[in-house]
Each structure stands twice: as C-alpha cells, then as structure tokens.
C-alpha cells in the first residue's frame, strides 16, 4: 500500500541523539482486575535520548497504553527503575509526578482533551497557570505557541468552533507551551481524516527538525513510519527496537 504520509526515508533529516532523557530498566506493571492479575508489562528496558523521534507500536493488549502512561508519569511501575532526566520517578508521590508532567512532558491525545468551555488561548495557558507563570508572560507565551502551530488568528475560538485538525494543533500548542523535554503523543491522528492526519504529522516532522524530542504511540504503520526509531511491543515485552526501515 502506498501511503501519502510516508515520504522517502533517505531524504529526511536525522538529528544526532543528545543526552539521556528516559531510562527504563526491567519495568513491570501488574493490574488487579477483580480476582485476576494482569501483567501489562513484563520487564521492559528502554533508553530514549534528546532529539529522538520514537514510535511505540503494538496491537491492543500489548502494553502500549500502559507504557505510555508510565512514560508520561501518569502512572508508576510495579517494579523496576524509571529515571526521567536523571530523576527517579518510580517512587514519586502524586504531586511530584504532577510537577514532572507540568514541566517536562507535553501530552497530545487522540481525543484532543481540550477544556470545552475555554477558548484556545486559555487551554494553552493552563499548564502555565499551574506552573505559576505570571499573567502577562503566560499570555505572551500562549499566543506565541498558538502562532507556531498556525492558529494565531483563532486564539479566542472555543474547541467546538474549531475543526479536528485545529483542535489537535491547539493541543500541540498546549503540550509545547511549557518547553517540555518530550512531546508524548497518543494516536495523534486517530480522530482525524487522512488529509488532516498528514498535516498533523507534517507538523510533528517540523517540530522534530526544530529540536523537539517526540514519542508517538500508535498502532498504525503509516504513522510509525514518520519516526526515526520504532519500538514494537507484544504481550508486555519489547519485541523489537530499531531504526525505521
């Protein structure tokens, strides 16, 4: 199948990997579902460096979502080590995790997850509010972030007044506004038509070239092909880890 979202690999920019951002060592995660214990992750080791563009792939039930929640510091491992920029987050309490999410991680969700009653500007300002950035600085930075994703003229629109692609751009602006170490996207094109999906992936490519570190979790090969490195999961284990072929 020839996909419009898969340009030739040879022509792409590959930036040299920087220092270690994420280091995972022998991480497992157990869930109790009633009487049953589910091994979502069975022992995963992974290193991600600055300037990487990584895709995490796997069928449903492979532990992909669990890994993403853990990478995003929404969850902590049952066992194993997780260092985020040298800090051990495996045993952090909720408020410390919130601090990491606020300053180090920018989330982009499949369903955008914007606050429906707030305009684009307020949505983008929100991480800065929780970071305690003063109003005029916050305002300026949010405006800049929206301009960077091409929505400089839509700042006072509410999510329901924006198209799907525009909503995802707002979400990306929100993810980047606090200058995080990584951009963590979960099926970012899953709720978009293919043309808009292409645009969003082009934006990711641009962000990567500008120097952002990006992790995309997806089950679509076409999306994964945009990354420079692919980690494939199966049954809670890493099946393969290598550059995009």
């Amino acid at each position, binding site marked *: 199948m020839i996909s419009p979202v898969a340009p030739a690999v040879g022509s792409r920019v590959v930036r040299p990997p920087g220092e270690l951002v994420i280091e995972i060592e022998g991480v497992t995660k157990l869930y109790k579902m009633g009487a049953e214990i589910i091994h979502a992750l069975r022992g995963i080791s992974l290193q991600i460096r600055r300037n990487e563009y990584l895709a995490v792939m796997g069928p449903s039930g492979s532990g992909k979502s669990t890994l993403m*929640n853990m990478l*995003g510091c*929404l*969850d902590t491992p049952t066992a194993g080590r997780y260092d985020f920029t040298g800090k051990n987050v495996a045993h952090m309490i*909720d*408020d410390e995790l*919130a*601090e990491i*999410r*606020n*300053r180090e991680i920018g*989330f982009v*969700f499949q369903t955008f*997850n*914007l*606050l429906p*009653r707030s305009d684009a500007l307020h949505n983008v300002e*929100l*991480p800065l*509010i*929780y*970071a*305690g950035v*003063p*109003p005029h600085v916050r305002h300026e930075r949010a405006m800049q972030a929206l301009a960077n994703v091409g929505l400089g003229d839509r700042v006072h629109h509410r999510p329901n007044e924006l198209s799907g692609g525009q909503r995802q751009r707002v979400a990306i602006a*929100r993810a980047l506004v*606090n200058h995080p170490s990584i951009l963590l996207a979960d099926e970012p094109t899953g709720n978009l038509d293919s043309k808009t999906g292409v645009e969003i992936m082009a934006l990711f490519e641009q962000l990567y070239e500008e120097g952002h570190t990006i992790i995309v979790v997806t089950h679509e090969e076409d999306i994964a092909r945009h990354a420079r490195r692919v980690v494939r999961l199966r049954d809670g284990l890493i099946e393969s880890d290598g550059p995009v072929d």
Partner: protein
Amino acid sequence: MLLREILRMALSSLGVNKLRSILTMAGITIGVFSVIGVMTTVSALRGSIESGLSFLGSNMFQFSKYPTGITLDGNNRRRIDQRKNITLDQAQRYQKLMEDYTDVVCLKAFYRNGAVQAIYGNHKTEPDIQFVGSNEHFLAANQFSIGIGRNFTAADTDLGRPIIIIGQEIVQKLFPSESPLDKLIKLGGRTYTVVGTLAEKGSAFGQSEDDLAVVPITRFLSDFGSANASLNIATQAPAQERYNETVDHAITAMRIVRGLRPEDENDFELYSNDSLIAAFAKVADAVRAGALVISGIALLAASVGIMNIMLVSVTERTKEIGIRKSIGARKVSILMQFLIEAVVISLLGGLAGILFGVLAGNGLALMMKASIVFPWDWAAIGLIVCTVIGVGAGLYPALKAAGLDPIESLRYE
C-alpha cells in the same frame, strides 16, 4: 496568583449551570434571610421601643397587681390572679407612708366596664377611648402636659369632684368649633365638667395616646365601683441619687399596706422604664433565638444541597479533572478549585440573603415607624457562617475530585 486563577475558573464554571447554581444558592439565601431579617427588625425596633417604653417620667417606678403586657411565662398566671386588688385605701396609706420621701405618687385605675365613649350633645367620639381615674400627678407620671385649662389639684381628688381632663382626639371630636373648657360631657353614663385638655402626644406602637380622658380617682371609683378595680401606683423619687433608696422604702411601705408577713413574697409587681426595657429585651432574645434555630435548620438543609450539587459536579467533570491533572495540576489545585466553587455558591447565596433580609427587616421596621439600621455584626457573622458552610459542604466533594486517578478520569466519557 494561582488562587486568583482558581477563583476565576470557579466563577466561570458556576456560570455554566446558572439555574442549578442559583437554586443551590437559594437555600443559603433563605437561611440567611430569615436570621438577617429578624435581626434587622429587632435592632430597628429596639430604638423606638426603648423610647416608647419610657412612658413613665424620670426617676419613676410603678406598683401594680399585674405585670406589664410584655411577659413570657404563663405559669405565674394563676398565682397572680389570686392576688388581692390594690385598693384606694391601701394606695392612700402607701401615700402617707411615703410622705417623708416624695409627694409625687400617682394613683391610676382603668375603666373596666367594657368600651366607653364620650358624648357632648350630638358629638360623639370613637366607642373605645381610654378612660382612667387618677390624681394631680398623672401628668408627670405619664409624661403628659396640659394644653389649655388646668391640672387637677389635691382638693379635686380629696373631694371627688366630677371634673375631667381630655386628650386632643376627644377635643377634636366633641368640640370641633368651640372651647371645651367648662362644658359638660358624658362618659359611661356619668357627667363631668371639662377643666383642661392634654397637649398632643402622638402615638406609640401605632396606638394613639391622645384619645384619653382622666377624672379624679376618688370620683372615678365611686362612679364605677371599686370592687373590681386594682390601682397602679407610680412613685417618683426626689432625685436620681435617691432612687434606689426610695424604691427600697416604697417596697416596705407596700408590704405594710398589703399586710404581708415577713415570710410572704411580694404580692405586687414593681416595674420601671428599665424593667420594661429588660422585658422587651427578653422577648427580643426569644425572637432572636427562634430565628437562629430556624435559619440554622435552613442552612443545614442548604449545605446538604451544596454538597449534593458539588458531588454531581465532580462526577460530571471527571474528564476535565483528568485533563487538568495530565497537564500538571497538583491535588491542592483541584481541591481548591472545587472548594472555592462551593464557598462562592454559599457566599453569593449569603450575600443575597443579607440583602433581602436587610430590605425586608427595614421595610417592616419602617411600617412600625422605626428608623433604618444595617446589622453589620449579623451580616459579618452571616458571611463567616456561609464561608464555613461552603468549606464544610465542599470539602468532601473537593477531596474526591483531588483524589481521582488521572488515567481513569481521562478515560471517563
């Protein structure tokens, strides 16, 4: 700074469910309204009642068989009914015993044979004027003064002359175009000569004090019978410094004329302006206590309403909470957001209650001719209580919101 943002968020989310927010506030409003309304009315009335109750002259106190109208306890009723009347004989012996202290002793008896009307030729008054028997000290004891003509003299009382002093309302009804002096008028089937009129006094508690007719008490008792009459005895101390001394002496004198043994209780009431004001204060306290209980119950119900609506709100906004947490909101930020929402509901409701309560209370006070007051103390207490209610009712829902798992709540649809 973050607090200001959180306050803004709380206000904007209240605006989303305007009707729901207003209905929730209404409970608080009713509770605060009832207490502020009553407190305003009582405060406004207090001033006018205290001046209205000062119907006795300065340094005066009064003995009577019955306590004054304002009383709470009905259980003494039987004991009071069994008291013997204060007779003219007793009153005159009391007067004599008090001679060394004061000359100003006002005896007073009320007309007890039903409603009474004053008649002069074709002119008639309302059928229910106030008609009393008294002596030359009536004016001083009741803070009246003579309009035209003269006051009674000691001789008028001693001799029981058939003369009368009448108030301005009666003057206007009976003598619209002539002088009332030396005219003969009829009251209760008896004829009296008008010797004087009372200067206009106005009204207290909406009741006119100018529809009053006074005849010498000796005449009054012989005309209308002394069998059922119990006299009030008002006594004026010669000076403020000698007031307590005079009261002590007067009580002894009363006990003597009433023939009480040392072990007997007083079988008469003593009251003064102060005791009347204290009696009012007692009633006012009871009304206040009632209002507090009612508003307490209303506020309790309202706080249950707030807690309920906040729990609904937390459930409805689970997704929003998840989003906020995923982008770095700490527990305390989420907690404060919902807590402040509850407090804002409660405070806005309370402010509305204060506003309506002050308006209603002053409206009521104005109808009773009292002056406008603003009960700052109760308003402040009201706002503090509303804050406490908001925190109390919002705490559990807010804790629930703050404790939500970010992954679970992000999945919530």
